[in-house]
């Protein structure tokens, strides 16, 4: 019997929203793991916070934990700690983990909790119809800051590097194949895996063209095991180029092993 990961719930993302590409990439990743026999479907748990990204849990016929806004990360750590044989992934957003839940994602990275976080970074609060998040560019005009955001944006990959995450990647939602591959790498990684998925919001902050011009993929010349190289690449997001791929990977004991 073919694996059917869909539910009866109608998808309510905007037509053409890159969230659907992320959903497809994840379903493919799961299907490939299951058909290869490397992960059993019932041993996967997918968490989500609240925001447009969080709708994903209703569209997946697997174990899910749809948490509050900003609070998915500690619940995922709890799930992994309670049952280490589970593969635990979490979908989150820039508002969901870098505005509201910032302390949780940083501490989970610091403690190397063996979970994967897929950050849908659209640089805007979309479900509340367009306000600046912690990753919105300075000057972004949203409903709560009509004269433009006065803050510099947070660079998620840089924060994750500084906090000690052991797997850090960046991908572009429209490249479903590469996103799927990176998701798989993250899920196989033993330790805290952080994947920033650039997910332009086609309704409130359409950055599709901006990123299409700037995204490039790291090749084998990038030394992903080297922290200095990783910092250099992570920082480049503010420049003209946006490097994607696995930025950093290392290994150390996980939180769940040490507790």
């Amino acid at each position, binding site marked *: 019997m073919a694996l059917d990961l869909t*539910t*009866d*719930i109608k998808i309510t993302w905007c037509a053409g929203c890159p969230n659907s590409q992320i959903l497809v990439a994840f379903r493919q990743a799961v299907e490939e793991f299951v058909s290869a026999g490397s992960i*059993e479907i*019932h*041993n996967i*748990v997918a968490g989500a916070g*609240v925001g447009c990204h969080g*709708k994903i*849990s*209703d569209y997946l*016929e*697997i*174990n*899910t*934990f*749809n*948490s*509050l806004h900003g*609070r*998915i*990360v*500690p*619940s*995922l*750590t*709890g*799930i992994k*700690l*309670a*049952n280490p*044989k*589970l593969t635990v992934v979490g979908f989150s957003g820039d508002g969901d983990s870098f505005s509201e839940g910032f*302390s*949780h994602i940083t*501490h989970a990275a610091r403690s190397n909790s063996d979970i994967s976080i897929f950050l849908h970074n659209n640089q805007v609060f979309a479900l509340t119809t367009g306000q600046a998040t912690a990753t919105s560019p300075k000057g972004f005009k949203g409903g709560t800051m009509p004269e433009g955001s006065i803050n510099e944006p947070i660079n998620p990959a840089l924060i994750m590097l500084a906090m000690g995450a052991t797997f850090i990647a960046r991908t572009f939602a429209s490249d479903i194949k590469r996103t799927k591959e990176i998701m798989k790498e993250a899920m196989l990684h033993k330790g805290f895996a952080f994947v920033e998925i650039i997910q332009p919001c086609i309704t409130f902050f359409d950055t599709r063209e901006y990123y299409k011009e700037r995204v490039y993929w790291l090749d084998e010349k990038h030394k992903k095991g080297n922290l200095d190289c990783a910092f250099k690449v992570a920082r480049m997001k503010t420049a003209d180029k946006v490097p994607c791929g696995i930025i950093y990977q290392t290994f150390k004991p996980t939180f769940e092993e040490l*507790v």
Partner: protein
Amino acid sequence: MTDSNTTSNGIKTIAIGGAAGDGAREAGINFSELLNELGYKTFSSFDYPSLIRGGHNFARISYSIEPVYADYKELDVLVAVNAESVLVHQHSLKEGARVFVEEAYLSEVKDLGIDLIPLPMKKIAEELKAPQVARTSSAFGAYGYTLGIPLNQLKMLADKVYANVGSEMNVALVEKGYNHVKKLGVPQDVCDIPTEHGEIGEVMDGNKAIAKGFLAAGLEAYVGYPMTPSTSTLQFLAKMAKKTGLKVVHPEDEIAVLNMALGMSYAGKRTAVGTANGGFALMQETFSLAGVSEIPIAIMVAMRMGPATGVATHTSQGDLQFILHAGHGEFPRLVIAPGDVEECFECAADALNLAWKYQLPAVILSDKHLSESYKSVTLDTKSKGPDFGKRAVPVGSHYVRYKITEDGISPLAFPGKANVVVKATSYEHNEEGEAVEDKADVQTMQDKRFRKLNGLYQDFAWFPTVKTYGDEWSDVVIVFWGSTKGAMLEARKQLKSPAKLVQVLWMEPFDADRIKAELSGARVIIDVEANHTAQLAALIREKTSIEIHNKVLKYDAQPFTPTQLAEEINKFI
């Protein structure tokens, strides 16, 4: 001097005072354990400011051959490690009270007109090269001498009491203190040490009893963030984690605490959290998540005096209504308030079991005076075991997490089980656990959740929702809850007329019929609470329409003391 006749019921009280860091608290536990080993029943409380060095700390122990439920203010013995301890407690000394004072400070207090027994605690510790924090061990010896205990027996007892901290040095200090007062010719009491007594129990505080209650009900994981007065539960469980496989986590903040705990429960581990009222305030949104997602969780909330940081190390019963209304939205919950150390054990076990039976958040509500006061207890640990609730997942059928059932309880499965998909969510949801907004779906799922209360109403018959004491026939009825129980049971001995005492333990769901039955026909009803707004009286009025006019309220961050409470109640009867 206090008239010793006011507490002439065979109860004696000893206080040990000093600056923070002088070890008054540890000495209090050691003295309690000594008395407990001798066959006395003890109750001890600890008063300390929120600082690490300086300030005035004291431990106060009341003991008797009969059970003691609260410590008395009036002292038979004072051990003063500094001069301030004498100044603070001089007006609480009974006629003929023994006051052991650190010899180094004798000159500062010698003109107060109090008989003092100088004890060179500091010097003795120096002579034996013992750390100064252990200096009260010589007072332990001095006190043991005055009790009339032979030196060899006292040394044996000290060996047992100090076993955890290295007894050799402490036993040497005990012997020095003993011989010092012997040489001074301090008179010994006519020995009234119990020769016949029941089982010698353990000296335990409420926080440890709560931990033991959770463990008895099959606790597998505990999550907490330090906050007075809840911290010692976390530390006690953390200490045993390695040996037992219990998962104990101290994450970044209280919000993470409850979210992490819900993750563990969702994945099938019987989990509890502990916090103080302020920490629980941070958990509100997640408490509501536990309600809607029906993830079982037991939560210990230990109250201290608020609002905000309040009086951080002192007691209050100011959060009953907060807990009853905690979390946004409407969902069933369980709130149980134990009144003594034994009840802490029983109620914590019940809270964890019922959280799992009904898949809801269950709060066990304590306070500083209950959580951190020690009592001689023998816990009936065999009386409580794990109750796993409705776990069976129908075989062959499509599993849905939130199945609509007659009793409101849906079969509970965990991720990791083949052919089962477990979807938990913060959104209102359908049986599958997918978000819904349809009005019929929204109403149906709420009705399902609230039907679980019917089961809890049936459980009223099996659990101590309300307890009564004293003169059950009396038309004078006194209602109270939580740690106030201790002072109330002691104050009863000093009431000028008979009275029935009614303790409310289950706050939600509320056993309204039972309360109505206990209060109806009363000529005088008196409400006793350690808060400003009479929150139990408000609850009783809400649930039974009975208005209580006579209130004894205390909100100075100190627990009731028996004599003072009796005086207040006597004004109404």
